[in-house]
């Protein structure tokens, strides 16, 4: 039990700080730069991404273990015996993930609109925006791989959640910086996106301090 908790803690520390999806892996830069002008919208975006990443990690985990991996548990193998030996990891992984994530998000959005209008309002436009976010696909791909080790469902979901929190923290920091940038005397040619990229680079330099903190 303690070992399992330690693993989960290591996963969270790893994806939040050491391998932060934005500033260490450079995934999800479009929402990171596009929606970080105001802290409120950055928080909304961060929460929406956290939500989707957690769900996507869990769902793609099932997909990976019961449809893509070769073996007895492969559901496709019931109908097509050949799949049991080969699996469908090579041909289906990326495309099925994109399809599943996009469907999932649209589905969640529809359900949420009916059952929880308040949450739907607060996430707003960001939810449909992130269906094809590379950070979401990235966390799904990283959660369902056998190298360095095969994650179980809980670990994959926690990794998705932690990656979302890491994204949220990066968004929050960046939005604070960009609100200040709006007041600064930035040279004409650097205003807007260029200085935001410079900021991202310097943030990434600062986050390098965490490297090696957890071996995950």
């Amino acid at each position, binding site marked *: 039990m303690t070992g399992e908790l330690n693993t989960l803690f290591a996963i969270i520390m790893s994806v939040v700080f050491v391998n932060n999806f934005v500033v260490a892996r450079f995934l999800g830069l479009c929402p990171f730069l596009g929606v970080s002008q105001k802290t409120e919208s950055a928080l909304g975006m961060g929460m929406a991404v956290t939500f989707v990443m957690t769900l996507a990690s869990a769902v793609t985990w099932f997909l990976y273990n019961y449809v893509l991996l070769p073996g007895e548990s492969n559901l496709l193998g019931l109908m097509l015996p050949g799949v049991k030996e080969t699996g469908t990891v090579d041909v289906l992984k990326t495309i099925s993930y994109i399809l599943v994530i996009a469907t999932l998000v649209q589905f969640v959005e529809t359900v949420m609109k009916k059952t929880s209008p308040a949450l739907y309002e607060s996430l707003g436009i960001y939810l449909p925006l992130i269906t094809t976010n590379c950070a979401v696909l990235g966390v799904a791909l990283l959660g369902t791989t056998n190298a360095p080790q095969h994650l179980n469902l809980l670990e994959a979901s926690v990794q998705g959640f932690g990656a979302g929190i890491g994204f949220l923290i990066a968004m929050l*920091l960046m939005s*604070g910086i960009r609100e*200040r940038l709006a007041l*600064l005397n930035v*040279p004409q040619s650097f205003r807007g996106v260029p200085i935001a990229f*410079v900021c991202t680079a310097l943030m990434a*330099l600062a*986050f*390098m301090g965490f490297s090696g*903190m957890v071996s995950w």
Partner: protein
Amino acid sequence: MSNAQEKVLLVTTSPHIRGPEDIPRVMWTVVGALAPAGLVGVYLFGYYALFIVILSVLAAVLTEAVIQKYLLGQPVSVKDGSAVITGILLAYILPPGVPWYIPIVGAIFAIAIVKHAFGGLGNNIWNPALAARAFLQVAYPAPINSDWRVLKQGGIFSNITGVDSITQASPLFKEFGGKTYNYTDLLTGNVPGCIGETSAIALILGGLYLIYRGYVDWRVPAGYIATVFILAKFLPAKIEAPWANDPIYHVLAGGLMLGAFFMATDMVTSPLTKKGLLVFGIGCGVLTTLIRFYAAYPEGVCYSILLMNTATPIIDRYTQPRLLGQGKK
């Protein structure tokens, strides 16, 4: 600043008292406060250390002048001393035996990208010298990390890059086989390390003078050093060295004094509110200890201050003091 803004700022009720404080005075005082640590460094590491400091300062000042004159078309403001401070600070956090081009590349990065891309003095988000150090760490890992040299015999005429010197483990070397230095050596600076960080006593004196003059808020160094002291005592360390949980060693060794008194306290890149300054100092302390204890790098001062610089706008946002008459939230 435009004329309209100036007029707005000037309309106050009399009497008006003109203070003697202006940017050059503050900056040159800081340069003076930094001088003792540099003198110790030059005495310990020989004339080459002085050469590195001069190169770094020259590169910083020249870069600033060229950018202001030819790229931005502004009046050149190198006389205010801020580029000089960036140059000195950058040299102080470089190992004494680095190749000559390292301080030049670093100073150009610091001034051109970290300072002037953001709009120059007073506009930068990160401390230029520290960001340049982090940049050099990535760009030139070998010369920055490998060689911690000390002179066989003290004296400024010895050459640190040549036969007069030997390589020695730095005080914060984490793996087995490091060397533990005693408190006296750490205080006076008789240890391997970066040019300006070795002598704790010279840095404390300079820092206290700045606090006395009111240029530095005591909350940052106090919060920083106290946090490192407490955490170093009680946090379980993943270091095999005998000083792992020795709080005094952690406070005296490495760049902590230089960072706490001269870099974390940078007026531009630290929070504006008093509560924010305390949060900033404590945050630096927590991150420094975490990096020293668990991360790959031996020293965490540079990265912890950069990370807290990143968080400064958010800290300012959430620590704004309550206005008089305004209710609690």
